[in-house]
């Protein structure tokens, strides 16, 4: 047992528990429930110890508890080397430390651990609300640390005030470290959660089945352009190409994914760059999708590390996008490119592939086109015309049977982009034109004076590409033939009635809410741009912009100069605040007079009154006496009689006189002019 005087007082304990609660609160949602119970249990036990009803647990109990928690973790997670079990382990050991909370040293240990636990929050989320919460955590934990100093400092206002003051003082240091601290890569990689469901665009589409069109307004992409901006009808963000159709389901097909041997050029530099410069340069910030697909306009090249281009003009990431990911893209629109090669045999066959049987009406219809000897563009125009004539765009199409294409084209004639794109590609293939379905996003909404384009999940779209000899792949959007407003104005406007029809409140109709949502998205975007995505590249760039060239000397100066300035500021402040009030003018003048007298060899003693000093001057330096007496009289009237005229007179006297030039003055002014006071 520790020395009695070291035992933690009540307010120390309460502060520690408050800090622990603050640090653990966001984890409670992520961790298994029994860890919350473990924390509550540990706190309860410790409080019982404080009340003297129980002893701190002995070795056997502690061992038992450790065994239980390890078992619990093993049961809850099943695997060890992943992020969540590690965080859970930290949280559990943190809570169990309460059972050993005896001395002040333990309190400090627990609170320092609390900082670490609070920081693990950012492993999951780095958005503004979490950052704010993290700040609050730090304030509370620091207050708890401050409260350990004794009863007086444990009062909430005082502890929090001290904490806020300390942290405010640390802000400049934080900013400095944020800018100059080298961004090291992780020392070890903890596998992240891969089980999260993928959202938005998936690796296949099945138009005939239950409609899976996302109505979520969650942001997916934020695209900021550097230079020209594509026209709205050009904004097709390609993510996936479906070449394989099994009669119901469109999918990528074997050998496209790099994991299956798909060819990916991982560095843009290796690629022969097109002669014409890129039309568009932009930066995409993509929310986590748990898939490796990235989204870009046709013919993209990306210099971002870990991003490669595929042969079907997409870009993909080496690993899945588990957290927000930003990449730079340059896009060459296809019509600007001249290096069109012939479609090779494999590609030719792949993009004409159709299932062996099924959909006879469509095949027959397509055979008519083939027989009529039309070229690809004419066939496409005919099909689109057909769509335009008798189809409706709806978000709630009926489910389709076995021959889904037949049923759609000649039966229901209602559907959305997947239906149109799928049946169009099927028809084209049947007519002998190589075609494929492309999935991704279309459109986007400008945020804050076109600072960036916000693409949401409901902007997901599917369209088609057909091969035209000599011109290469050309984008065709069958949906545009049916519902041009879907492409021009976006889903929300095109299907306004259906859109969110099942949502409880028609919130999307309230303009101000939409604007606020966009504003909030903008704030988030800036936050991500400025803070979260501040990696070593950005750091280098910023330092280069600030310093011109990053050298140790300049970096040292960059750190030392603000620190020196701050220290000088503090010094000046101390000096000025320590000097107290400024003296009244008369006293300052008299001080000046005293300094001159001191230089002339006769210094006033601190406690010597002006008149006594004048008397002493008369004895020791009679030559100076008349003038000194005049000055003394003027000073007494100015300083103690508060006579402004005397102050002016004193100023005049001092301006014209110095002990060295004594006689000159007496001649010019004459003593008689100056009243002697009494």
């Amino acid at each position, binding site marked *: 047992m520790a020395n009695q005087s070291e035992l933690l007082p009540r307010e120390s304990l309460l502060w520690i528990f408050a800090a622990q609660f603050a640090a653990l609160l966001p984890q409670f949602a992520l961790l298994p429930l029994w860890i919350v119970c473990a924390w509550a249990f540990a706190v309860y036990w410790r409080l019982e110890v404080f009340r003297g009803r129980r002893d701190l647990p002995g070795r056997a109990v502690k061992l038992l508890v450790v065994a239980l928690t390890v078992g619990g973790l093993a049961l809850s997670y099943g695997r060890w080397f992943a992020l969540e079990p590690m965080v859970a382990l930290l949280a559990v050991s943190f809570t169990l430390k309460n059972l050993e909370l005896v001395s002040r040293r333990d309190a400090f240990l627990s609170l320092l651990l609390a900082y670490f636990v609070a920081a693990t929050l950012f492993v999951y989320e780095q958005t503004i609300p979490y950052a704010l919460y993290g700040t609050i955590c730090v304030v509370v934990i620091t207050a708890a640390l401050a409260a350990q100093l004794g009863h007086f400092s444990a009062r909430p206002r005082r502890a929090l005030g001290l904490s806020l003051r300390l942290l405010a003082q640390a802000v400049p240091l934080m900013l400095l470290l944020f800018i100059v601290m080298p961004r090291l890569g992780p020392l070890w990689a903890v596998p992240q959660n891969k089980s999260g469901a993928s959202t938005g665009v998936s690796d296949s589409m099945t138009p005939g089945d239950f409609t899976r069109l996302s109505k979520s307004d969650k942001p997916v992409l934020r695209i900021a352009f550097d230079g020209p901006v594509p026209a709205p009808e050009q904004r097709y963000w390609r993510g996936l190409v479906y070449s394989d159709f099994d009669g119901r389901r469109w999918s990528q097909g074997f050998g496209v994914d790099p994991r299956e041997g798909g060819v990916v050029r991982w560095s843009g530099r290796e690629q022969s760059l097109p002669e014409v410069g890129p039309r568009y340069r932009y930066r995409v910030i993509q929310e986590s999708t748990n898939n490796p697909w990235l989204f870009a306009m046709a013919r993209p090249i990306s210099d971002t590390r870990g991003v490669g281009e595929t042969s079907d003009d997409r870009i993909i990431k080496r690993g899945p996008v588990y957290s927000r990911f930003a990449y730079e893209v340059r896009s060459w629109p296809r019509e600007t490119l001249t290096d069109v090669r012939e479609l090779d045999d494999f590609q030719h066959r792949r993009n004409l592939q159709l299932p062996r049987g099924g959909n006879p009406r469509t095949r027959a219809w397509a055979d008519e086109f083939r027989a009529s000897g039309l070229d690809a563009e004419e066939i496409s125009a005919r099909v689109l015309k057909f769509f335009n004539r008798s189809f409706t765009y709806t978000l709630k199409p009926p489910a389709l049977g076995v021959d889904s294409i037949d049923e759609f084209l000649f039966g229901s004639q209602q559907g959305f982009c997947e239906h149109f794109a799928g049946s169009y590609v099927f028809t084209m293939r049947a007519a002998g034109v190589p075609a494929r379905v492309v999935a991704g996003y279309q459109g986007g909404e400008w945020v804050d004076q076109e600072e960036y384009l916000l693409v949401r999940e409901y902007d997901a779209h599917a369209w088609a590409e057909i091969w035209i000899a000599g011109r290469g792949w050309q984008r065709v959007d069958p949906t545009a033939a049916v519902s041009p407003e879907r492409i021009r104005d976006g889903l929300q406007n095109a299907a306004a009635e259906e859109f969110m029809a099942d949502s409880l409140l028609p919130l999307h109709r309230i303009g101000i809410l939409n604007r606020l949502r966009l504003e909030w998205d903008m704030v988030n975007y800036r936050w991500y741009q400025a803070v979260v995505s501040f990696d070593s590249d950005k750091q280098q760039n910023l330092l280069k912009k600030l310093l011109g060239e990053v050298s140790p000397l300049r970096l040292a100066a960059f750190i030392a100069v603000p620190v020196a300035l701050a220290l000088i500021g503090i010094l000046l402040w101390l000096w000025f605040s320590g000097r*107290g009030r400024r*003296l*009244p003018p*008369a*006293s300052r003048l*008299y*001080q000046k007079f*005293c300094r001159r007298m001191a230089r002339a060899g006769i210094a006033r*003693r*601190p*406690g*010597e*009154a*002006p*008149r*006594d000093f004048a008397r002493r001057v008369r004895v020791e330096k009679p030559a100076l006496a008349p003038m000194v007496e005049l000055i003394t009289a003027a000073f*007494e009237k100015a*300083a*103690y*009689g*508060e006579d402004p005229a005397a102050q002016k007179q004193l100023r005049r006297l001092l301006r014209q006189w110095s002990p060295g030039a004594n006689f000159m003055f007496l001649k010019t002014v004459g003593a008689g002019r100056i009243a002697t006071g*009494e």
Partner: protein
Amino acid sequence: MQKLISAIVADIGKVLLGKEHQVKLALACLLSRGHLLIEDLPGMGKTTLAHALAQVLGLSYKRVQFTSDMLPADILGVSIFERDSGQFRFHEGPVFSQLLLADEINRSSPKTQSALLEAMEERQVSVDGETRQLPEPFFVIATQNPLHQSGTFSLPESQLDRFLMRISLGYPTREAERALFLGVDPRAQLQQLKPRIDVAALKKMQSLVGQVKASESLLDYLERLVLHTRQSPECAVGLSPRGALALLHAARAWALIHGRGHLLPEDLQAVLPSVAGHRLQGESGDGIQLVERLMRQVDIIAA
């Protein structure tokens, strides 16, 4: 006014030779409505000074010689049953006078001392449950023998604090003493002193004291002096706010005596030993030495 004051000082100077400074201090003390404590050896002219002051200022004067067996009633007065009227009648004690000379106050017991000191502070006495006002003005000039003399009860600090000033007269100069030998008996002269002013004029003079101007610069100096007594390690006890106020009042009276409408640092310095000497306590040595160091160390112009 100035002439009147110099005349008063000169009159007392005729009786108390060569003690002009002390006379002025005593006068300043009375003008600022304070009580005066004179500490000196017997035979130095304490009583003479008090008597001369009363005479010149035209005040009713009573003298009490304090002894160790004195009771409060001896000062305050007693109610006595009178057979003629069949009633108790209050016989006023010596405290009911305008100027009371409490001679050798430290020879009486603390109980008696405190009875007088209460009257000094409240300017009223309570006897038999009845509160009686003391005459206006009311001054006490107390004398005490140096503490090392036998048969003395030293006044506690709280009671010393009631006295605005403590002065000591000291031996006369050679010339003064020679004049004393040659001249007529001071006691005879004392009888010849005529009142220079009446009570109304004295009150007017007292009200003038409050009008003496104290400038910012001077108050700064006062502040520095007071602060120094509180912060200096030499002083065990600093100057209380009452002490600081007493210093300011006394300095104002001093400035008035010297015919000035505003205070000078010299005024503070002149009264400082008398006002602060008995209020300060040093780790070692007397309050007076402390005050002298204080005056030397605290700058008049700036901190």
